[in-house]
């Protein structure tokens, strides 16, 4: 396991723990249920409460500009590590903020009629999205199911960096692009404050690679920095 991955794990765990703490504290402050409900009376459903949860995640994204990424980085897919916080409202709506990161090294190329010629000039690419999502969790009031599907969508700001050997001033790239996404998944409750979720997300970042003749993206006619991602999310919190 690389050191980078170890650190990403540690950061994710810390995020989860930090975000989950207030939720656990709130749980302790809830009034105790009646000690002995009357026999035969219906058990009152727990009153929904606002919950703040933390999560860490990892997953793979198939870039919309797959040919471009494949040509330069050797794969149309990238691995993202992320984490964030999520507020689940009593009405089952949720709002989340997520920070993730992808980084990979490759080399500059020339592309002719779809054929790729690596040129032996090292380059490094990093993508750091900050995404805010709003969504709905399909958990009927009173349901005891441990599986909670959810859907959502939102907006993101995607920091893109590209550095190359021999680059002169202004030739490296560090820009932020705005994108939009929709997502959906299912959360499996695995305990009182721990859950694991599988999630898919479609992101569009239109016109991020635009009109630059010296770009592989232009050679492939690709301009969208988004893609389709699948990830596993570890949630701490109710």
């Amino acid at each position, binding site marked *: 396991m690389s050191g980078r991955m170890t650190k990403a794990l540690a950061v994710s765990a810390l995020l989860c723990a930090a975000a989950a703490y207030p939720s656990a504290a709130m749980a302790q402050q809830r009034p105790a249920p009646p000690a002995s409900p009357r026999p035969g009376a219906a058990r009152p459903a727990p009153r929904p409460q606002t919950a703040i949860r933390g999560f860490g995640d990892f997953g793979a994204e198939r870039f919309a500009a797959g040919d471009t990424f494949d040509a330069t980085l050797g794969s149309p897919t990238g691995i993202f590590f992320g984490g964030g916080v999520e507020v689940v409202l009593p009405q089952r709506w949720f709002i989340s903020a997520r920070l993730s990161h992808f980084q990979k090294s*490759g080399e*500059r190329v020339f592309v002719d009629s779809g054929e790729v010629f690596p*040129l032996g000039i090292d380059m490094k690419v990093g993508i750091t999205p900050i995404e805010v999502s709003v969504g709905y969790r399909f958990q009927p009031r009173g349901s005891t199911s441990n599986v909670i599907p959810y859907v959502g969508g939102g907006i993101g700001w995607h920091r893109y960096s590209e550095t190359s050997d021999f680059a002169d001033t202004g030739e490296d790239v560090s820009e932020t692009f705005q994108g939009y996404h929709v997502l959906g998944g299912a959360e499996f409750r*695995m305990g009182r404050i721990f859950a694991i979720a599988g999630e898919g997300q479609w992101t569009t970042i239109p016109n991020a690679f635009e009109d630059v003749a*010296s*770009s592989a993206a232009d050679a492939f006619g690709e301009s969208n920095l988004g893609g389709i991602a699948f990830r*596993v999310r570890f949630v701490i919190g109710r």
Partner: protein
Amino acid sequence: MSIRTQGRAAALIGVLVWFATVAAQDLLPTAGRRSASPLAVSGLGIDRGLRPGTALRSVGKPLSYARMRANARYLPGSLIVKFRSGTSQASRAALLATVDGRTAATVSNAPFDVVNLNDDADPEAVAQRLSAQPDVEYAQARYRVHPLFKPNDPLYSLQWNYPLIDMERAWDINPGASSSVIVAVLDSGMAYTNTAFDFTQTTAQNIDGVVFPALGAVHLTFAAAPDLGGPSRVVSPFDFIWGDNTPVDMDGHGTHVAGTIGQLTNNSTGVAGMAFNVKLMPVKVIEGFWDDYFESPFFGTDDTVARGIRYAVDNGAKILNMSIGREGPPAPVVRDALAYAVSKGAFVSIAGGNDFADGNPLPRYAELATQFDGVVSVGAVGRDRTRATYSGTGSWLELMAPGGDVARSGVPGMIVQQTYDFDFTDTFANGPTGFKAPRFDVFEYIYYEGTSMATAHVSGLAAMLYQQGITKPAAIEAALKRSATDLGPAGRDDQYGFGMINARAAVRGLGIIR
């Protein structure tokens, strides 16, 4: 299986998938590509001689291009930190401990520390973290410094043509290709070897309407141009004009052209060439005055050129320079030869003609370039980046390169390279007066102009691209066009084609965004 158990199983599977994907990312994508890179081949020789009485110096490995690349932008596993004055040793150690850093041995002339990190640490990221600490004045990765290559050839300052196409920054990336690339120069021969030939001419010769007296038996000496590197630079030479394998230059044109393609460079001598590490293949397919005077058995005709093209390709040339051409009817035999060259993976650049002022006739060889992806026609620009007054125009024109233009910029606006001293070769220049046997062993740095010179620039750059990994002729042409600096009206036009070659942009290639 309960839902809880299923959930735990899902978690376990998720973790396993995580490890598998991360391992795949680290292991799969770049290793094979890297090993396939053709760049990691060349190295500069070093003199390992030890002079008596001198101390043995500790030297690193030779700073080869491959080594520079391997180490990329900065050295892994270390960085530079300067702590603010007054920061205690304990504070320094504590700060460094947060990044698993250890101060390396003290080095001289360094009011800063070089800190060792774990090999897998990202020095840039660590430097960013340390820089945010109040006790740290600055921290940075140990970025590699590479030469901004500017040849030390003493006459390099006369070669405006290289800065014009951003050649110096191209050499930073690709220092002159390598000897694995063979560039054939189909021309008047090349001054590549020391030799001598005996000729006999017992009758007066009428050449271009001028009658030159018979010289009788003459012993002509030939020498290798000192700045071209001699026979070691040459592979598979052949002379289709005299029918042997010693294509000595009896004109000077081929030697000048070869100089622009591959003149020895950074050798503290004379001038520079584009792809100064390549091997050259002189293929003599046109004759000069002295070949005619001494009645060479063959002539520079379409069939000779076609044979020369096929010979060059069959003997391993991957780049063919044709600073030659003609007007008149079509040349199907040359067209077939060009098709053969491209089919065998050879790229060809062809001069676009110098007769714009004489009716701008259609250059038949250059015109053929438009029929093949992998063959380009080349026009000339002067040092002011405008089309040279002589350079032909038309729908066949594809690329421009420096060819010089004495009409606008005077002699310094021409292309200088080493070739024969005209005083010793062109004894025919004044007609029969002063006519005597030539010498082909006296050299000088001489200014030429023409699309011939421009074509040599394209061939040199093509050789660099080939060495760098663009090994298909069509792709080389596409790279040259895509990276060209657009001149004249926007887009392709008949005056400038797709524009002037830009060496740096070509060898730098494409990133994802820029």
